[in-house]
């Protein structure tokens, strides 16, 4: 099983998985971070309550989050083709991954930001902070440790989503596991891919937690 070719395939799969995961996470945060912040700020107890915006965004997030990823993967193929010009391969997988992960990231960010002490926000408002200043100088920095823990969570979740993309010719370790393990019944290869995925999750989670702990000035 561990032929030179298999090692190359595995390495390529690993590269594709990391590429899909990291790129999708990046784009998901570019969309999800502001979305999560808007959800907190426009909440009825937020610093700028705005019920329509909050409810509409909340509904979109909930709808996208309730669609099973495998279905979403297939359903957005035309849209994927429109953006990337293809519906197969790692880059194509990034599109459904982002559509699935951005709302997830928004909720993760929302819950982190909500941990920021109400009193600290009130204090900064009493000093004349604008909404943007509260967001940039209070909400995000004060929630940073929790945001980093959330980032590790998002990374691992997106990685496991990306493995599912193998079913629709998405590439990566998941595709190898499905192609070799499921279609060709080479169980040992599938097991190896699973082990590699588990290791990546462990590494992401471990590094994430370590950085979050280092960044937190509350525990000394």
């Amino acid at each position: 099983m561990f032929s030179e070719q298999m090692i190359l395939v595995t390495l390529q799969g690993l590269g594709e998985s990391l590429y899909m995961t990291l790129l999708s996470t990046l784009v998901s945060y570019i969309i999800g971070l502001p979305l999560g912040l808007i959800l907190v700020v426009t909440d009825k107890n937020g610093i700028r309550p705005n019920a329509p915006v909050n409810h509409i965004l909340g509904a979109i997030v909930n709808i996208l989050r309730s669609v099973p990823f495998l279905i979403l993967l297939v359903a957005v193929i035309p849209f994927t083709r429109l953006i990337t010009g293809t519906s197969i391969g790692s880059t194509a997988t990034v599109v459904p991954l982002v559509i699935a992960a951005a709302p997830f990231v928004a909720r993760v960010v929302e819950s982190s930001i909500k941990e920021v002490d109400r009193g600290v926000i009130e204090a900064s408002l009493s000093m004349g902070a604008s909404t943007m200043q509260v967001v940039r100088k209070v909400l995000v920095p004060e929630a940073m440790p929790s945001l980093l823990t959330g980032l590790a969570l998002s990374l691992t979740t997106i990685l496991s989503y990306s493995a599912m993309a193998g079913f629709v010719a998405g590439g990566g370790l998941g595709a190898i596991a499905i192609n070799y393990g499921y279609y060709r019944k080479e169980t040992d290869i599938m097991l190896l891919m699973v082990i590699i995925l588990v290791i990546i999750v462990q590494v992401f989670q471990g590094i994430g937690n370590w950085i979050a702990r280092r960044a937190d000035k509350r525990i000394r």
Partner: protein
Amino acid sequence: MLNSNETPIIQIKGLNKTFSSDSNTVVALNDITIDIMRGEIFGVIGLSGAGKSTLVRCINLLERPTAGQVIVDGQEMTLLSEKQLRRARQNIGMIFQGFNLLMQRTALDNICFPLELAGVPRKEAIKRAEKLLDTVGLSDKAKAYPSQLSGGQKQRIAIARALANNPKVLLCDEATSALDPTTTQSILALLKQLNQQLGVTVVIITHEMKVIEQVCSRVAIIAESRIVEMGMVEEVFRHPKTAAAKKLIYPMGQQVETFTGKGNFIRLVFNGDITARPIVADMVLTCGAPVSIAFADTKEIDGMTYGQMILQMPENPVTYQRMLNYLDDEGITYTEEGESYVQ
């Protein structure tokens, strides 16, 4: 420090605040009118739920009044645009019961924070923050994070932060309520010192009598969303007129109960015009007859005695008269209550 010719720095006129939800409406503040003078330390005391925290938040418009005017340093706060309001708030420092420091910033950077908001260049901000750290006596804690500081130290940093933009007013919302008595003393002393050095007007919201006694010149008593009494601290604490005020000032006393007993009761009233000395003991020794103390609640403020004492006097009219003469000679104010008294 009080100058009655000047216009008040804070004028609250006919202030109302109601909180309404779908099901009910709660009146938090009802027709509040207060003038706070430049450079004074003004206290607002009330039991929890009386509306005092809402009142202080209406001064910097963290809570928007439902009706009425709030004028701070000549600006009608409720009419300001959002941008103007933010600038006005930089002129009003505020400290809190829970300190509310930024936990991910050092003490120094916490003090820099309001300067950052105001757009002060970093170098200048640090210089100013270092000076303020020195003012509150924590120069050695510049690089410490709030989690490494004690409660008293955190409040000192919060005070320094509140003063960073040289505000004319400092609002203190239960600022000592989370602190032990000794730390409370030191924070109050610091507030008094800053008031005298910088001339900053201080508004103190508290439920603790001793906080008001120690630093305030004037006090307003708030109960059930209204101001029930207001005036100089000694005046209000000496002669509380309303039931709500009496409840705060004599927490043990039952205001409405009538007590009866043999003999004559007299009520001694200490107005702070005598120094603390053993009046009753001297009287007993001089007149050679015992009295019993039916009720006493006196306080010492600045070495002078304030409060009331009710004595059950001897039945013998000659001894009784002798004692009254003694009190007259000593210049003690008293009233004869007869055979019963109302506490």
